[in-house]
C-alpha cells in the first residue's frame, strides 16, 4: 500500500468512555495542580479535544475506570462538560505496581499528611522486601529525604501511627513531632541507659510538647536535646547529660536547657561562626562578578563551599532552602 493510501485510511479510533465513568486514582487523591497550566491545557482541549488518551484500568468488581495517567486531562474534560474521553485500557496493576506508579506520576502536596504515605511505603517495602532509601526513592520518585522521614515514622509503635491519623484535626499529631523526636529515642547513649523506657519517653515528649512543659515550644526543640547530647559526648560528660535527660522525661520542673553541660563553648563557637558567615555573606553579596570573573580559584572555592554547606545542612536534616 502506498503512503498516500495508508494516510487516507481511516485511523483506528481509540476506545472512549463516558467522562463520568472515570475516577481519580485513590492512591493519590490529593494532587495540587497549578491553575495557570491547567487553564492552558483546558483551552487546548476545548480547541482540539484530548489528543493523548488517558491510561486507565478497571478495578476488579468495579463499573468505573480508574485513571493511572491523565488526571489533568480528565479534570479539564469534566470542567468543559465533555461527555466522553479517549482511553487506553491496561490491566489492573497489582497493589505494589499501583503504589509505585502513582508515587512516580504525581508530586506530593506541600501540606501532605506524611503518615498515609509512610504506611504505603511500608506496604511497598514489605512486598518488595526492600529497605534501601536510594532504591525506594528511585522506585517511587520520592525524594530520598522523604523516604527517610517515612521510614522514621514507621519505626514508631502502631499507637503513635493512630495518633497521626486521628479523625479530629485538633487532636491529630503531626508527623514532624515524631521525626524530630526520632534522633533522641534512638540515640545510642540514651537507649543504653539503664533507666531508658522508650514508650515512657515518647509519651512524656508528646505530653510536654502538647502542654508546652519543660521549655518545649516547638518540635525543633528536640534538636537542642540532640545537640546537648552530642556536646556532652564530646566533652566526656555523657553520663551526666543522659541522667539529666531522665529527669527531663519524668519531671516537669526540669527544662530542656538543664541538659546543657558545655554551653559556653558551644555558644561561643556558634556565635563566632555566625559572625564569620555574616561577614563572608556580605562580602559575597558585594562582589562584582565581572571584576572577579577571571579568578578561577575563587569560584572553585565558592563551589566547594556551597557543596560543603549543602552536605552540612543535609546532616543537620534541615529542609532544602
Amino acid at each position: 500500500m502506498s503512503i498516500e493510501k495508508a494516510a487516507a485510511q481511516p485511523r483506528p479510533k481509540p476506545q472512549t468512555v463516558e467522562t463520568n465513568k472515570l475516577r481519580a486514582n485513590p492512591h493519590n487523591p490529593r494532587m495540587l495542580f497549578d491553575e495557570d497550566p491547567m487553564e492552558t491545557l483546558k483551552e487546548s482541549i476545548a480547541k482540539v479535544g484530548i489528543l493523548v488518551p488517558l491510561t486507565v484500568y478497571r478495578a476488579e468488581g468495579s463499573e468505573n475506570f480508574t485513571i493511572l495517567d491523565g488526571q489533568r486531562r480528565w479534570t479539564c474534560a469534566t470542567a468543559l462538560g465533555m461527555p466522553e474521553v479517549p482511553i487506553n485500557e491496561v490491566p489492573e496493576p497489582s497493589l505494589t505496581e499501583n503504589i509505585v506508579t502513582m508515587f512516580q506520576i504525581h508530586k506530593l502536596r506541600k501540606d501532605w499528611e506524611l503518615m498515609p504515605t509512610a504506611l504505603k511505603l511500608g506496604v511497598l517495602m514489605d512486598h518488595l522486601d526492600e529497605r534501601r532509601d536510594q532504591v525506594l526513592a528511585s522506585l517511587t520518585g520520592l525524594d530520598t529525604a522523604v523516604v527517610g522521614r517515612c521510614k522514621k515514622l514507621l519505626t514508631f509503635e502502631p499507637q503513635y501511627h493512630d495518633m497521626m491519623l486521628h479523625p479530629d484535626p485538633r487532636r491529630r499529631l503531626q508527623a514532624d513531632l515524631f521525626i524530630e523526636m526520632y534522633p533522641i529515642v534512638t540515640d545510642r547513649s540514651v537507649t543504653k541507659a539503664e533507666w531508658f523506657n522508650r514508650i515512657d519517653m515518647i509519651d512524656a515528649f508528646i505530653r510536654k510538647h502538647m502542654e508546652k512543659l519543660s521549655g518545649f515550644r516547638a518540635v525543633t526543640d528536640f534538636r537542642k536535646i540532640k545537640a546537648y547530647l552530642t556536646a556532652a559526648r564530646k566533652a566526656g560528660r555523657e553520663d551526666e547529660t543522659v541522667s539529666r535527660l531522665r529527669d527531663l522525661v519524668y519531671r516537669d520542673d526540669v527544662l530542656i536547657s538543664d541538659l546543657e553541660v558545655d554551653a559556653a563553648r558551644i555558644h561561643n563557637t556558634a556565635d563566632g561562626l555566625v559572625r564569620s558567615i555574616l561577614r563572608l555573606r556580605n562580602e559575597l553579596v558585594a562582589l562584582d562578578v565581572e571584576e572577579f570573573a577571571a579568578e578561577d580559584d575563587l569560584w572553585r572555592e565558592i563551589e566547594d563551599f556551597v557543596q560543603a554547606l549543602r552536605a552540612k545542612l543535609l546532616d543537620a536534616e534541615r529542609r532544602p532552602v
Partner: protein
Amino acid sequence: MSDAGIGAAVQLPATEEQLSAWEARFRPYRRHPSRECLIAWLCQFSEEHQTIAHRVLDSVILLSEDDILQGYKGTLESLPGWSKKPDERSGRWFFVGMGDAGESGQAMLRLFREANGLAADRWQSLCVMPRELPGLALKAVDSVVFVDDFAGSGQQMVDYWPIIEELVASEAHCYLALSATTTRAEAEIRAHTEFDIRAPLVLQEEHNLFSEACTTFTNEEKRLLEEYGKRASKSQPRGFNDCGLAIVLSHKTPNNSVPILHANHDNWISPFPRQLIQVAA
C-alpha cells in the same frame, strides 16, 4: 456534681411531676442527673426564665445504649452484601472504629460488634485500625464500615475523608455507621466524601434550638438561651459549629449540643457533663 445553690432554692423551680419525669427519662445517661442536680441546673436560670429551661429539658433527645445497639444492628442488617456467613458475603468486609484506642469510635465499635453478634474473638480479624487499611489491598468488591457515634456538622468527616481515601486506596465501598446525625451533616458528608452514611436517627433543622424552624422557643427566648449559653461557653454558646442541638448519647453528649446541657465548670453546672471533673470556664 456540685450541690451548690440547691440550698438557696426556697421554692422548687419545677413541679414534682416534672422533676420525676425528667429524672426517669434521663436515667440511661452514663451518670444520670439526680433530682438535686436538675434543681441546681434550673436554679441557674432566673425565675422568669424557668419555663424556657423546662422546655430545654423537654427538648432533650437521649439515645440509650439500647437505642444505639438497635440502631447499629439495623444498620449492618441493611447493608447489601453483608452476611455473617462468609460464603454468603459479597467481597471482604472490615469494621473500623474512628479514633485511636480508648476513644469513642473504638467504644462504639465495641457496641457495634455487640449489637451484631460480632463480639467474639473469631470476628476480631474483621476489625481493623485505619493504619492497617493500606496493607489490606482492598478491592472494589470489598466494604469497609467506619463506626462512630455522631456527626453534627459533618465538617470533621469531610476534613478526614482525604486521609481515609488515601488509606482505603481503592474503590472499596466505605460506609459510615453512626447512631445519629443531622440533615446538615448528612448533606455535607454526601456532597464532599464517598462515605455512604447510615444513621437511624437524623435530626432535622427544627432540632436546632436556634433555627427559625424550631417553634419551641420564641425569638426572644432564643436570644435568652444564647445569653445563658455564653455563661456556659463564651466561644460556642450555641454548641460546636452553631448546631444548637439538644441530643445526648448514653455515653457522651456531643459538643454540637448546646453547652448549657453539657458545660461543667465554676460558672456553670449541667445535667450531662462531657467533663466529669469541673474545669475552668
